[in-house]
């Protein structure tokens, strides 16, 4: 089951995290975990708005056979990140931020993947599993 949210304007961020919270709730995540997830979605969605202008968030339930959880894919076709290792270093920031964005989002979830290439775009994949 999948849900796609277009991110075209900063006002879309709230919608994306509400849907994320909703889906997380259905899957069985606790209220605290729902907030962690909604916060992570807010961060990656905001990254899309700030750096790419537009993109999409895809929410889906996942299972690896034994565990159940939620997957969030934040995708854009923006300028891309030149040095992904640098971007993931805590405290690093190019924009007007607290420097928490991606490294921070990673702390809120169980699995995190960043794929990006200059001129192509960026895809951030987050996964959170039910305990």
């Amino acid at each position: 089951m999948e849900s796609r949210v277009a991110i075209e304007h900063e006002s879309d961020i709230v919608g994306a995290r509400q849907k994320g919270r909703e889906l997380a709730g259905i899957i069985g995540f606790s209220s605290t975990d729902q907030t962690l997830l909604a916060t992570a979605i807010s961060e990656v969605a905001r990254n899309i708005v700030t750096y790419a202008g537009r993109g999409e968030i895809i929410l889906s339930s996942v299972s690896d056979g034994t565990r159940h959880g939620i997957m969030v894919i934040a995708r854009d076709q923006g300028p891309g990140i030149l040095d992904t290792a640098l971007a993931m270093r805590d405290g690093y920031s190019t924009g007007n931020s607290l420097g928490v964005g991606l490294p921070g989002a990673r702390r809120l979830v169980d699995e995190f993947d960043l794929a990006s290439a200059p001129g192509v775009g960026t895809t951030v994949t987050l996964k959170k599993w039910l305990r």
Partner: protein
Amino acid sequence: MADLVNQTPAQLLSREMGMTEQSVERRKRIVGLTAQDLERIAAIRDLVHAHIEEYTAVFFDYLAALDEGRPVLTNRSVAERARQLKREHLIAMVQSDYGTAYIAQRLELAMLYSKAGLDLRVFLAAFHHLLKNIGVTIMKHFEHTPMEGFETFMSLKKVAFFDIGVIVDVMVFERERVIRQQQDSIRELSTPVLQLRERLLLLPIIGVIDTHRARLVTESLLRSIRANRAKVVVMDVTGVATIDSKVANHVIQTITAAKLMGATVIVTGLSAEVAQSLVVLGIDLAKLNTVGDLQGGLEEAELLLGYQLVRGEHRMSRAPSAET
């Protein structure tokens, strides 16, 4: 997802279990269901439909004969619903359309069995018995072409195993859900937050704490701060023998989070060993509000609270307020 409110329990379960169209197709591939199988099944559709009542009876008679099978039959409305769903299932089983709607149907029946506490072994035995009956009907029908009869029966069996796969997954899923809930209850009982007096909470940490338990403690504490409108929390770690970096970080995070909610945390009972571990981990103990023993900590807490209460009346020396 605006239609969430109108989802049936089976549809909700379908979502929780990740039963996408993709995963359903995967299940079909796993049992090796082909177009030819669907054709063969279509050919016996009317034959099976003609015997629906008989087959349904066979299944439930088998359940009734076993102690472990009775749970589904004791309650009349449950038994009737089960029979109706079984009838619908048998009809759908030979419709050659096994998509998300078919799955939802299976889930509904599986949920019913799960709630009634039907023993999985008994279900499998009854289902097998039912299949045998259908098999006999098919072989009689293909009396003159037994190979075709056999192959038709094998095609139907693929669907049967597809069904079994779903039902077993549901029962396991539901059982795990119960276990998870029980574990949560147990954990909640072992991480008590006590209200000592108005606005003062005591959080005794006892025994070994791992990251998961530490997290539960934090959640419990933060909720208690809100519920009790606590201004001071005395976190007593006298009962903690060792602490690793993950847990230490977690404790720091707990203290920071409590401050965000306007509560000051006083840590008491820090043994020399644990204090040393914290120093080694690079944690600045000076930043923590620590007091040697629990008694001292409680006195400090009362001082803080007392100061709040008489503020403006007496010019007491300024105690730290809840400032981040």
